[in-house]
């Protein structure tokens, strides 16, 4: 109940921190999508690049988040941006690359050959084929990649509170520093609820955006 009281007493700050968290995660996913999706599409046309790009993204994914913040700090502080929101967003963009690139690549790669050939037979140009056939079929899987990235970013953004990026991690950080139990719990609960909510919303969006034909196909496949 302490948690409830804490949240009621600090509703304005909680709202602000949540907003800050949403802002960091939203911006980073947006930038990551703008880089990752085109990159994923490009590597479907250049197979020999595909493995390298995905491996490179995998290396970034392997680096622990707090260590990545640490490694970037001396580099970014030469531009005066060692702490704060800028390194947080850069790190989040890097982490999002693997799920986004991999899902885009796999999705477009898996568009069945007969479909692509039919489009070719209709006289579609490469660009039209991409826009009208391959991307609409691939969208659900690409969106699944975005969902993984967003949920992961919410968790990493919480850690970014330690480099002064703000967000809900601030409650956890300050709560631990002050041994203030209800503050820690509020932070942990808000972040968890936020992550679960985003996951649920994106999965709804995923099923809403899946073309009807594909859904029927999946059902028949089962």
């Amino acid at each position, binding site marked *: 109940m302490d948690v409830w009281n804490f949240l009621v007493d600090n509703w304005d700050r909680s709202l602000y921190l949540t907003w800050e968290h949403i802002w960091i995660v939203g911006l980073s996913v947006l930038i990551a999508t703008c880089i990752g999706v085109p990159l994923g599409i490009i590597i479907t046309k250049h197979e020999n690049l595909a493995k390298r790009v995905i491996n490179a993204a995998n290396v970034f994914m392997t680096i622990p988040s707090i260590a990545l913040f640490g490694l970037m700090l001396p580099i970014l502080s030469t531009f005066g941006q060692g702490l704060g929101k800028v390194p947080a967003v850069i790190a989040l963009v890097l982490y999002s690359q693997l799920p986004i690139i991999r899902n885009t690549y796999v999705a477009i790669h898996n568009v069945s050959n007969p479909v692509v050939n039919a489009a070719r037979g209709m006289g579609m140009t490469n660009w039209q084929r991409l826009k009208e056939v391959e991307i609409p079929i691939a969208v659900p899987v690409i969106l699944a990649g975005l969902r993984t990235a967003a949920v992961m970013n919410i968790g990493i953004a919480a850690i970014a509170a330690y480099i002064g990026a703000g967000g809900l*991690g601030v409650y956890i950080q300050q709560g631990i520093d002050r041994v203030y139990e209800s503050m820690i719990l509020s932070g*942990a609960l808000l972040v968890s609820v936020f992550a679960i909510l985003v996951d649920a919303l994106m999965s709804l969006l995923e099923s809403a955006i899946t073309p009807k034909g594909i859904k029927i196909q999946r059902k028949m496949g089962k």
Partner: protein
Amino acid sequence: MITVLGRAYRFALVFLLIYLGIMAQQVGLVDYLSIPSNYAYMNALLWEHVYLVAVSMSFATAVGLIIGVVLTRRRFRKYTGVVMYVVGLGQTIPSLAVLALMMSLLGIGSKTAIFALFVYSVLPIARNTLAGISAVPPEMIEAAKGMGMPGWRILLDVEIPNAMQVMLTGFRVALVINIGTAALSYLVGAGGLGDMIFTGISLMKTEVLLAGAIPTTLLALFADYLCEILTLLLVSKGLRLEQQ
């Protein structure tokens, strides 16, 4: 063209290493670590980190495997959906939140950290074991039954070898996440390399920060590499050929 690119890539790597070395000297990392007590401290933290990861991972692997195997037995198969859902939900909870929640339940100390790491690593292992064994083609199991294999031999000789690749992926994901989360366990008073990272950030001492961040990164990359070798050793040759 590709070979030229490959060579350029290697040169770039060498230059990057040299540059990093120069930078390490400039920010004072070399000076910092050449003081014996500092080096010894870093080493002790590294082993503490490895200890946290090793203990929590061994429990997590044992429990995750058992959960995965039990849930694929026919009697328990109806619970698979529910458990997968719960596991998925658990994985969406951020690692820092898991640590914080555990801390308010169990207090501070390395036991709390190990328990939190354990909980967080069980999920991918259990999930992939489940997914891997469920994906074994039913006709293979039929054939094994037809040969008169008892249930436990079907599990050991047919199901697990065929699921090995997927299971190892789960193990690898769990291990890498575990190493990263163990760096946060400093916050609940369990030590580990996070000690130097967080201290370095709050004091704005780049050399302390890097003395923590670089070993953590190398540890994670090394673990990832080890898992790759493990995949080569444990996944049967036939399955690997099939993939290519």
